[in-house]
Each structure stands twice: as C-alpha cells, then as structure tokens.
C-alpha cells in the first residue's frame, strides 16, 4: 500500500531544438554576402554559397569557386520568472556554424552545367542554463548539431534561365539534459541525459530567371528533413531506491526540420548598387508533436507525446550592397520573421519570438582569384509566456550577435 508507484512521471518533453538564431531552425548563416544583406539572396548569384541559397542561381556562375566560412554565435538568454522576479541566464558556449562550398563550372560542350558540393551546419549551438535555474526540471542543457551534405547540379537552360537541384544528406547528434525532481538523502537532484545520433534526407531545388540585366527573380524549395534518432541512449542518475523506475536504455525520437519555400528578387539599378528581397514560407506545421519512445517503460518513465503545435510562418529579408570601387563591397540589411511558436508553447530551448534583426557586411577583393567577406548579425528578442506543460511563466530575453568571415578562391 505504501509502494511508491507513480513516483513522478518524467515527462521528457524536450528536444525541440536550438532554434535560436533564425526563425525556428532556419539558421541562414550559410553565406557571408547574403548575411551582409539581411540573409537574403535567392535571386542572386553571389559565390559558391549560392549552392545553398538557390541551386538554380548557381547555374549562373562563370568561374569555379571554393568558399569557406564560419560565423561564431554569441547568444545569451535571460529568463525572468514572473512570480519570484528572479532572473536566470544561459551560459552558452560560442556556437560555431561553418560552411564549405565547392562549385565546378564545366567547360566547352558541357558549359551550361555546374556541379557543386555544399556542406553546412544549420545547427551547431548549445543552450546551457545556469546551475539550479528555476526551469532545471524542464531543461538544463541542449546541444544539437547537424551537418548537411548537399551534392548539387545546376543547369543553365538559356541565357536567362537556370535550374538546379541537390540531394541533402544530414547527419546530426543531440544531447539533452535536465534535472529530475527526485532528491537523494543529501538533497541532490536526479539528472537525465538523452543522447543520440540522427540521420535525415532531403533535397534543395531552385530556379532563377533574369528578367533583364538589372532584374532577376528566383525561387527555391528546401524540403522537409526528418531527423530520426533511432539509437539514442537515455541515462539517468537517481537515488538508488528509485533506480529501477528510471532504467538506462535506448530511446527513439524524431525531429522534423520543416520545408522552406522562398521567392526572391534582385535589382541592380547601377553597376555599384544591388538590392535583394526574399520572402520565406516555412512549413513549421510539420512540428506538431515531439514524441519519445523508450525501449523500457516503467511507472515513472513512460513514452511521451508533447504538443508543440508550431504554425507555419512567413519571414521577410532584404538588403543592399554598394561597391564604391572594384576592390570593395559594403552591405547592409535586415529582416523580420514571425515566430512559429504559439502562446503557451514557449520552452527554454526555444524562447522564440517575432524577430527583427539587422546585419551589415563587406567584401574585399585582393585579386581576380582571392577575396574575403565579413558580416555581422545582431538581434534581440523578448517573449513573455506561460508554458502550458511546464507552467514556466516568465519572460525570455535573447541577445544574439554573430560576426562571420569567409574566404573565396575562384579560377
């Protein structure tokens, strides 16, 4: 009768992702020139990073190119609990997304064809909350890493029309930790760690049409990538009397990365000025539920299905570049995105909000082969919410700064 059944259902409801630096997961840190212009550039050939932004535009490359870039992310989230008025802060390590692109332009008979390989990291960040923070039983740390490898072909059908497509292979790892509200005889709390590797597939298609030599329009569709964790390992540290309630063992889970449809345009009123505008539609509705399936269930550890109820959103990005001479380009831009996270569903791993951000950047061309790009991204967002599941009720304030740099070589 005093048996301790039901000792706390461990609702491992998380994993939702470190979607902190783009609307949702859309980390548009895949090209320094685009980052300088508000992360837009679907209707523009910039450099080999176009393989990501629009495989169709990559058909307009007139040289072969290699592009290597990194964008360290400095992000801090402050959470102020509404009831206690206490503020807690993340201690995130610096995120280091990188990208590497190689684009080969065929010659002679195959001239309209380009082939490329794009490697990029749409995740690469870690959310680490301060010790003993008030939401420790919802999340203490989430590290989500994924590397996308995208072999791509682009074909220029006519002088003005290019198409392209790439297959996406994604390999990632997730490590999610939180404290468990059971205490040992010294008062220490239990801890859960879920770690696993994920594999997913998708594709990236794009077209570009040059209406005239000043004006282009483009469109891309990046497919949904379902990241499936099949061999995850759940480890629990709990008081010995409860160890049988929390068996270490395998789990499986899946995380959908939604499809993104983008239309963009570019306008070059003179040789010195370029303006770009992108509109994204992100099908976040795909992220409806987060489910965890444990190989071994107990009264304390049951499979969980956690509503996420994301909604599909639009985001708008735009920017300009100005080239005062043949060596230098400077850029400025910004964007606005609606949040896919609805009221009642804001979590410590996704303290997302409608987002306004600004960017600027520059390029310097050392010679006909070698050039360097730099960019800077800054955003600040605030979201007040009461999570329906955890009842965490407070305000998240996020600041993210991301300076980036890339090297280009073309021949």
């Amino acid at each position, binding site marked *: 009768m*005093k048996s301790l059944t039901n000792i706390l259902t461990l609702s491992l409801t998380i994993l939702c992702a470190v979607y902190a630096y783009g609307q949702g997961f859309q980390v548009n840190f895949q090209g320094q020139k685009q980052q300088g212009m508000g992360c837009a550039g679907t209707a523009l050939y910039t450099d080999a990073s176009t393989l990501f932004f629009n495989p169709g535009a990559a058909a307009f490359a007139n040289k072969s190119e290699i592009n290597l870039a990194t964008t360290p992310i400095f992000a801090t989230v*402050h959470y102020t609990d509404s009831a206690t008025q206490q503020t807690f802060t993340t201690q995130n390590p610096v995120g280091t997304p990188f990208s590497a692109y190689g684009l080969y332009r065929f010659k002679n008979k195959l001239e309209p064809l380009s082939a490329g390989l794009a490697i990029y990291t749409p995740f690469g960040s870690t959310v680490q909350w301060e010790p003993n923070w008030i939401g420790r039983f919802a999340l203490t740390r989430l590290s989500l890493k994924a590397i996308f490898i995208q072999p791509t072909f682009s074909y220029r059908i006519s002088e003005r029309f290019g198409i392209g497509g790439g297959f996406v292979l994604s390999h990632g790892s997730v490590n999610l930790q939180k404290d468990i509200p059971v205490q040992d005889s010294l008062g220490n709390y239990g801890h859960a760690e879920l770690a696993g590797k994920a594999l997913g597939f998708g594709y990236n298609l794009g077209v570009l049409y040059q209406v005239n030599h000043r004006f282009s329009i483009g469109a891309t569709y990046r497919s949904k990538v379902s990241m499936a964790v099949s061999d995850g390992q759940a480890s629990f540290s709990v008081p010995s009397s409860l160890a049988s309630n929390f068996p270490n063992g395998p789990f499986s889970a899946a995380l959908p990365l939604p499809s993104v449809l983008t239309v963009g345009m570019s306008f070059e009123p003179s040789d010195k000025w370029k303006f770009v505008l992108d509109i994204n539609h992100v099908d976040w509705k795909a992220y409806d539920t987060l489910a965890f399936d444990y190989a071994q269930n107990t009264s304390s550890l049951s499979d969980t299905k956690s509503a996420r109820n994301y909604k599909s959103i639009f985001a708008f990005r735009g920017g300009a570049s100005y080239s005062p001479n043949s060596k230098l380009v400077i850029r400025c831009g910004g964007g606005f995105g609606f949040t896919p996270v609805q009221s009642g569903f804001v979590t410590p791993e996704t303290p997302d909000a409608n987002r306004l951000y600004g960017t600027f950047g520059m390029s310097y061309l050392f010679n006909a082969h070698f050039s360097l790009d730099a960019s800077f991204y800054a955003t*600040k967002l605030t979201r007040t919410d009461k999570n329906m599941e955890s009842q965490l009720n407070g305000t998240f304030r996020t600041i993210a700064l991301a300076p980036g740099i890339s090297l280009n070589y073309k021949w």
Partner: protein
Amino acid sequence: MVMKILRYIGCCCICALALIACNPKSEVPNPSKGELDLTTVLYIGDGQMGGYMNDGLTKENQVNSLANILATQLTCLGVQPANVPFLDASSIGISVNGLAPFHLGYKTDCKGVSGLSPVRDASTGDISCLTQNIFQSAHPFDVFGIPGLKLNQFTNTNLSATNAFFQRMSSSSSACVMNELMSRNASFFQLYIGLEDVLDYAKSGGTHATLPSELEFQQYYEQLLFNLTFHGAKGVVATLPDVSQMPYFTTIPWNGLSLDAANSGTLNSIYNPLGFYFQEGSNPFMMVDSSANVFAVRQIHDDELLLLSLPLDSVKCNQMGVLFPIRDEFVLDSEELNFLRNKIDAYNAIIRDLAQQYHLALVNTDQFINKLSDGFVYNGVSMSAKFVSGGAYSLDGIYLNPRGNALFANEFIKAINLKYHSTIPQVNALKYDGIRFP
C-alpha cells in the same frame, strides 16, 4: 569617397547597437511593501506555521517552516530576519508524542518484504531539546508556531505545563500565548490557526469529540484578532483545508483487501449470512460499526477513509480488516466525514467574515489544498497530495514539507500583495526540499 563609406559603416553600426542596447536585466520591478508597516512582524499558529513536519520538530524543519520562509522573503524589503525559537542544530528533534521524526527508509514488514516507508530517525525523540527555556527579554521571539496549539489555548496560563514547545519559549511558566503576543505590539501578523482543533477529531477517527462549536470558534478567533489589531496592526489570516484530503487519510485504499479464490471462498462462507460478499481480487475491508448489525461489523464504503495510523502489519498478517474488523479509531466513516467537513466549512465562513470585518488579507487554504489534491505542475515539477510521491506533504501525511511550505507561503504572499498593494516577490519553491529518497 572614403568618408562616405565610413559614414555608411558607422550608420550600420549604430543600427546594430540600437538593436541590442537595452540591458535585458533592467525590466524587473522592485519589491515594495505597499501599505504594510513591517516594523514588527509576528508569525502565529501551530506546528504548520512553526516547521513541524515528518512528525517532528528539528532546527532544519524550523528553517524550512512556513513562518521562516515568509520571514526570509520579507528580508528583500529590508526587514530583519525573524527571531525563531530554534532547537539546537545537533538535536534529532522530537514529535508531539516524544518520538523521533521520520525519514524515508527501508522497512521490512511482517511478511519479510522490504520496502520504502517512513522510518523513525531513532527509537525515541530528543526530549532534552525542549527542557531548557530559551526566552530572552532583549530578543523576544517573532515566530509563535507552537506544535499542537489550539484556538482555545491562547489565554491558557497553564499551557507551559502541557506544551513543552511553548514552555521553552515562554517568558514565564504562567505566561499565556495571548499575553506574549500582546507584549510584542506587532505592526503586522501572519496567522494560521485552527488546524489542530480539526485534526484532533480527524486523526482520532472521530472518536475525540473535541471540535469547538461554531460559537466558540467565532469567539476565540475574534478575541485573538481583536487583541492583535488593537493598536492598528495589519495582518493576514488563513482558512482551514478539508483535512480529509491529506495523505494521512487518503493513502490506504478502502478496497485494499486483496483475496485469492480460496480466501474469498472462506470469507463468503463466514460473511454471506450477514449480507457481505467477497470476490477474487480487491475487496473492501471489514470495519466496526455498532449500528450495522448484531455483530457490529460491515464492509467499508468507497467514500470512507482509512487512517495512516492503521497498523499495517496487523492487516497483512493478523487478519485485521478481515476477521477482526478495523476499529473506529482508524476510520472516518461517511457520517464523521460529513460532520467534519460541515464544521470546517462553518469555521471558514467565520474566518472569512472576520477577515473582512478586521480588514485583513485572507489566504484560501482550502482552495490551495484542493488544487494540490487535483495536482498541478510548478515550473516543470508535478505536485500533488499523494503520499511521498506528491512532493508537497511531509512523511507524516499531514504537515507540508519544505517545498509544500514554500508553495503555501506563496499563497500568503499573493493574499498580502492583493490586500495591501505590496509587491513582495514569491518564493522559488524549487529551492526547498521535497522528499529525500535513500
């Protein structure tokens, strides 16, 4: 040209800085005391106010008491920490019956099965921890959370002789609680009283006919408020919970009698003539009821409660609840429960009226305990009224544990803020212990 570029870059920098300029920490309101005068704050009540939990008082329990949690939260308004009649930190503490407090440990039952259970810290409590009087006139106490204190005992000048918890903190052996309180001339008081009156009846299974009449309750309560507010003190009072929702009364199931085919057959042959039937699986226990039949036994009903004081080894190994019906002192039957709940409702009506009459803040303890019984999630942690696993009640099944006290303290803070327009921040209840497991 260069100037133009620099100007352009500068413009972008300003844009970026403007986006991030606001310090995100600066938007928290400052705590304020509103209309409160916090010169002298008193905390008045029984063991629930003073830190009685796990059926015992220890210094650690006092630190985690409702009174001390509330007092600690007031220090963010510049109020000095409360003077608490702390026990010695090295003492294992003592229960109202002289026993040692509980911890969660392993216990082997009569069948040789070992399981988690509340276990006493020692064979007896530390009786010596209460013998020395620690009153100092220069440093009078702020916390009068006296285990066992009943509403009708405030003016009792003999209380020292019967209540060692009061004796050790009283200014003289003939002092009464009321005079001790009056001498402090409080500017603000936090009062939660009446629980022991109700518990005395409930914990005896309805055998102690000691519940005060409504009139007595009203008179004692009003006398207390009249004296406390005589010099204009403000205060907060709290209603009483439906104590029958506490784990002490809800943990042992009415139909916990588990029978195999042979045993149910035997019982049927014995009890069928009286109209009681048994089946394989779970069955109602047999209890004493003098009005049931000539044998004064019947099956317990699904709305009746078995108390945690029930000797479980007798149930498991010695046919208690089967051939030997469970005695009245271990059961709250429907009639007793109705009587008890009606009394509590009546007392609460009196408390609500008096709170209004004396312009005091009111904590709806009954609603808080109902919410706990329904279960709720607090910052990712599930809280409920379940024994041990619910995380809010201590191991005695009646008094709240530190986390339960912190959550209850937040009800006081909300009531005070509402009434006196103060902005005292709530307590982070997760900083306080729930149940510790071996």
